[in-house]
């Protein structure tokens, strides 16, 4: 039929119909986002305060809220429990051998703190705080960092007075900063080489080395912990369980760095035979053993001696 002269015209008409000109501009896909929809999701706060809702909260109100909702992970003074993030301290450390980046020592803007606590904290229950609670807790964390006084009340207006000390110390990425050249021969002097190797026992290598006890696919020894909950624990051990989870499980859960795995009776029998006094002393003061280094209090000096002893009780009772 395409051979007939008459249908030629028809074909052209058909093509025009089938291929409309490409639309310039919007394709008209999607619906209008209404102000109500946007208001529910538009939670971001900017350094100039844009986005801060009405409301307020004082340092005093923040203290109780922080202790109830935040301190279990971040510590009563923002010092961080176990491996949970530190929120306060560290001033003057950024150019030292051990820089400590915290809200007070590092963060350039207070708006970030309000925004982040509101969107992501408390960690297990994000976006559960009211605006007034966020104001109060933000004020309290600023207070823990000596950025506001204890009678400070945070709201849209007072926000503008808050200045973060480290703000001037950020600058825009200036890479590329290093310039290497594509030298092909005699590019370095091998006689000056110092070869630095890795420390044993930190890498999880159980999947390719038979002699490694460190596994790479789980957090802590869940089987052992499950087993541990079956035995009747003493009061001390019950009290020590959460300390253990925060400060000791990181090494003793999976056997990191040579630590005896909690729940592994064989690894613990000789240790337990030394008696609780020795174990407690080793755990509180730290020591260097045959398998590695046990840091004092697991590296968490904020723990009271008794808390460490309770954690030891939990470990021992779970490993018999």
């Amino acid at each position: 039929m395409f051979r007939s002269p008459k249908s030629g015209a028809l074909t052209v008409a058909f093509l025009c119909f089938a291929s409309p000109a490409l639309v310039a501009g919007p394709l008209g896909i999607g619906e209008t986002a209404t102000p109500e929809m946007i208001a529910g999701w538009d939670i971001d706060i900017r350094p100039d305060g844009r986005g801060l809702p009405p409301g307020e909260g004082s340092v005093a109100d923040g203290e109780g809220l922080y202790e109830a909702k935040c301190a279990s992970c971040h510590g009563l003074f923002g010092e961080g429990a176990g491996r949970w993030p530190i929120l306060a301290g560290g001033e003057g450390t950024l150019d030292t051998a051990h820089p400590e980046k915290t809200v007070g020592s590092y963060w350039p803007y207070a708006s970030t703190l309000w925004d982040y606590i509101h969107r992501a904290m408390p960690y297990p229950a994000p976006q559960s705080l009211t605006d007034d609670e966020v104001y109060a807790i933000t004020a309290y964390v600023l207070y823990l960092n000596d950025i506001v006084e204890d009678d400070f009340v945070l709201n849209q207006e007072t926000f503008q007075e808050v200045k973060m000390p480290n703000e001037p110390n950020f600058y825009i990425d200036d890479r590329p900063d290093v310039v290497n050249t594509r030298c092909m021969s005699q590019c370095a002097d091998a006689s000056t080489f110092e070869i630095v190797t890795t420390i044993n026992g930190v890498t999880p290598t159980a999947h390719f080395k038979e002699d490694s006890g460190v596994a790479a696919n789980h957090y802590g020894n869940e089987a052992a912990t499950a087993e541990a909950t079956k035995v009747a624990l003493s009061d001390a051990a019950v009290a020590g369980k959460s300390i253990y989870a925060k400060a000791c499980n990181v090494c003793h859960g999976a056997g990191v760095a040579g630590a005896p795995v909690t729940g592994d009776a064989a690894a613990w029998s000789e240790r337990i035979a030394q008696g609780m006094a020795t174990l407690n002393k080793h755990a509180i003061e730290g020591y260097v053993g045959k398998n590695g280094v046990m840091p004092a209090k697991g590296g968490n000096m904020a723990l009271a001696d008794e808390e460490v002893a309770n954690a030891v009780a939990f470990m021992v009772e779970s490993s018999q």
Partner: protein
Amino acid sequence: MTKLFEPSLPKLMEALATEAQGLKGMDRRNFLKGGIAAVAGLASVQIIPKANAQPNLPPNIPEWQTYLGRGVVAKPYGEPSEFEDLQRRTVPWLTADAQSSISMTPLQDLEGIITPSGLVFERYHGGIPNVNPEQHRLIIHGLVERPIVLSMDDLRRFPSVSEIRFIECPANGGMEWRGAQMEAVQFTHGMLSCCEWTGVKLSTLLAEVGVKPEGQWILAEGADAAGMSRSIPMEKALDDALVVWGQNGEALRPEQGYPVRLLLPGWEGNTSVKWLRRLEIGDQPWHHREETSKYTDLMPDGRARRFTWVQECNSVITSPCPEKPLRHRGFLEIQGLAWSGKGKIKAVDVSFDGGVNWQRAELKGLVLDKALTRFSLQTQWNGEPWLLQSRAIDETGYVQPTLKQLRDLRGGWSIYHKNSIHTWNVTEKGEVYNVQIT
């Protein structure tokens, strides 16, 4: 010859070898013949149970050839052979829990340049949300003419593209800043993956809403518990940014942001916000937690770089590596991966002596913009120790730096963007160790 009747084959061979030591020339040849005959004879009597441990090897007929195998759709969604040990792995002591944590891609086990979806490295700040795509929306608003809300259905109506791009966490290798630490390539370099991504150009979506002239920045926000948020400059958004729903030919995996994520090719992985729910156009950046407290680079003078978005040119040898030591002398193909956030890989060089002398490697297969690129060098290994390195050069002419060059400028505390030349120490035995040359 009574020794020969011990049932263990290795012991038997050892005994043969010991006795053969004492003999010479013809004697020795004759002895060996006799010995082997003895072994063969023995095999029919005593060693057979042992030999049966390998009943599938020639000349035997493999067991799996003697009956019918599994039929179609026995596994409607396939999985790797049970004989493979393909796993993302983590370093448990790195983080306090598994929700704000990281796992690495087993680079040592991969072929070509594509990372299978199930092995793409993971990084979450609040776990993986279980997003129902029918109830998921992307809102685009702010300094625009027409704020819109898009369902997944709407998104798929836009003209789409498919592109192969790497994603790398800027903290890849970060554990190695202050010294060699991880004894495995999976942990030194595995926060790195490369997939084919399918979606719509962000510029298409921006044309749809009509950005006002003051609109210079975009806040991208996720629907996860962390409410992940990053400020993106308009220039990148209009350049090569994508909003993707497809990964390696199927829907995104939950781990990678199902049902939809941002993809900023060549930029630090964190900016490619997953579970994307909102794009707000504004006139200045937001300076949120992931671009102030985190993902900023502390320098030795105590000041810090911000908006360090680009993943500069990098490379690593993945075979051999600690997980894949050398087991054979003679011919060897060295292989590895190179990548650059600024474009294509132009060349890769390999050094056997810790960077004194270099040889040009070959680029294998596809060489794509901001994608993993595989390189190879065919050589011989005869038990000599090596300090094995690779050095990549990208199309901008940037040459991957040495660790010393990086440290001299940046110190040891910047956590992110450690893209220096990596060294494997290959020992006489063929074992491979992670070392640093200072």
